[in-house]
């Protein structure tokens, strides 16, 4: 068969091949994002996502959205500007969370026996869906960064609260008050993670009384806007096809 001949013999076959390609590319994309995003998130969000006694109302709320909006922004850039597919953020986050669940269940519980209720991952899905929808409706990187990025930061804490709140119920333990999450961190010994490594409730945000989570969420949203821009450009740059002749877009 010469190069000028088609690889398919009918339209139906072309559609079938196209769908096969779809699932192959989708699978490859999913697994690649899962791996890259997972490593990135473990290195940058790490302990804040690993342990319930790190999931506080200041730093976790601030750090997790900022470091996790990265891959969604980049994958959105590729899938939206090349394919007009508004699923980049959701695909990324679902891949990340699936990878995290496998890691937490197989490694944290299966190998080292930390209870799953101590090591479950954070929920990033609400922000990702909104990010995708804003991009679809606005068809604008700037709008998505400003509105979607802010929403991504703002939705993080309330999106996780139903799971975290039961662990913030206080307990009196040998004369000290702590939350159940603190007690988990104390009970389930982490030889390599001493208590002072825990970065929680630090900072100078003391003028809002107990209501620091919304302030942290807003701050996180603002920084997420900037990070969104940055990673969106990364995504566009990586999605270029300069390496293919005659298509230097």
């Amino acid at each position: 068969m010469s190069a000028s001949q088609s690889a398919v013999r009918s339209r139906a076959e072309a559609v079938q091949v196209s769908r096969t390609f779809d699932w192959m590319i989708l699978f490859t994309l999913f697994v690649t994002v899962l791996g890259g995003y997972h490593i990135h998130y473990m290195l940058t969000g790490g302990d804040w996502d690993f342990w319930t006694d790190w999931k506080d109302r200041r730093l976790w709320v601030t750090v997790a959205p900022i470091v996790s909006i990265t891959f969604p922004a980049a994958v959105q850039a590729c899938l939206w500007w090349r394919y007009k597919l508004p699923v980049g953020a959701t695909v990324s986050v679902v891949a990340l969370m699936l990878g995290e669940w496998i890691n937490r269940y197989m490694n944290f519980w299966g190998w080292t026996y930390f209870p799953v209720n101590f090591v479950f991952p954070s929920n990033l899905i609400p922000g990702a869906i909104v990010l995708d929808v804003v991009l679809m409706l606005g068809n604008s990187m700037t709008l998505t960064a400003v509105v979607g990025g802010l929403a991504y930061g703002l939705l993080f804490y309330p999106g996780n609260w139903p799971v975290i709140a039961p662990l913030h119920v206080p307990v009196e333990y040998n004369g000290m008050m702590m939350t159940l999450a603190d007690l988990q961190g104390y009970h389930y010994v982490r030889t390599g993670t001493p208590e002072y490594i825990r970065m929680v409730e630090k900072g100078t945000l003391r003028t809002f009384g107990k209501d620091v989570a919304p302030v942290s969420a807003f701050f996180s949203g603002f920084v997420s806007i900037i990070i969104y821009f940055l990673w969106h450009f990364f995504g566009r740059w990586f999605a270029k096809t300069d390496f293919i002749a005659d298509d230097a877009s």
Partner: protein
Amino acid sequence: MKIIKDKVAKLSFVALLITMTAAMFYAPTASAHGEKSQAAFMRMRTIHWFDLNWSKEEVPVNDTMTISGKFLVFAGWPETVDKPEVSFLNIGIPGPVFIRAGSWIGGQLVPRSVSLELGEVYEFKVLLKARRPGDWHVHSMMNVQGGGPIIGPGKWVTITGSMSEFVNPVTTLTGQTIDLETYGLDNVYFWHAVWFAIAIAWLMFWFKRPIFVPRHIAVSTGKADTLISAGDKKVGMLFAVGTMVIVAASMGATNEKYPVTTPLQAGLLRGMKTYQMPEATVSVKVDDATYRVPGRAMQMTLTITNNGDSAVRLGEFNTAGVRFLDPAVHEDETAYPDDLLAEEGLTVSDNSPLAPGETRTVEVTASDAAWEVYRLADLIYDPDSRFAGLLFFWDESGNRQLVTVDAPLIPSFI
């Protein structure tokens, strides 16, 4: 010839693959904690653990045991290690095979980091509840910010029973008794399943139609606008609004269900109560100290002065958790780990009772294979080649006093 070469190469490759695959089936458990690998000077000159007691050697699941004892925060703390201004009393075990049911320094519960003072002795206790069956090496341990983990002596403890029987009941301040081992797990699974389902629904809404090739062609030919229909936008709006409604409603419902929640607790505990050892009336000057590499022995020339009112004898030299005893003066009755105990490892050139007011210069030799086994001999390769340790003297009434030594160490290779 070429065929033979090719066959050899192929078989070699297959053999290599088989070897590598077989290696995967041999993955022995790493039960220790690298205590022997930690720089000797760190173990000798930072935290000195003594009077250690492991209350049990075999514990059924759900039963408890304690590790108790004292530690001296060495006054000659090395410059290369951050001072223990932020420290955490930890326990060296392979993951949560026990849960730490309690830990105390000077009677104060220490779930958080503490500030320790150089030169002071602290009494500690760690209460452990058995969780996972097996044989575990259980160490005392102090984490020091900027210094790393400083691991103390370890002892093998066996946990019997079944982990499935383990329970961890806790009563909250709202009066609810829960099992912390499984508390809230169904709730975690439920909410994550709900959000995964919503996300997958959103993805499948797009993936049910042709994705990459036709869409790329459409975008490339300037027909991108045709790819998002008004219906798509409505569905998108539905997902976005639905997401926000679910988030808001679930948060509201959660606040109603858990009206009392508190922030995570953190902060440094200062002013830990120290333990007052009997004041030492013996003074010791290290005239010189050498480590004889071939003999696995450290020799010290000590000038000892007894300023007390009863005669004393040197009974023990303790460094990095290894105890060298002179059995004529002191014998261990605490079931201290064998590998860390040199019951006859201390020799004193003249260990007759040192009378009050008397000064005597003696040759003290601490010899045992532990120098090599515990890699304390590696001290000679450390950047600050000094040794340190605790000397214990006993008087005729059995009273003990502790004196620290800290001096340069000269290796002897012949």
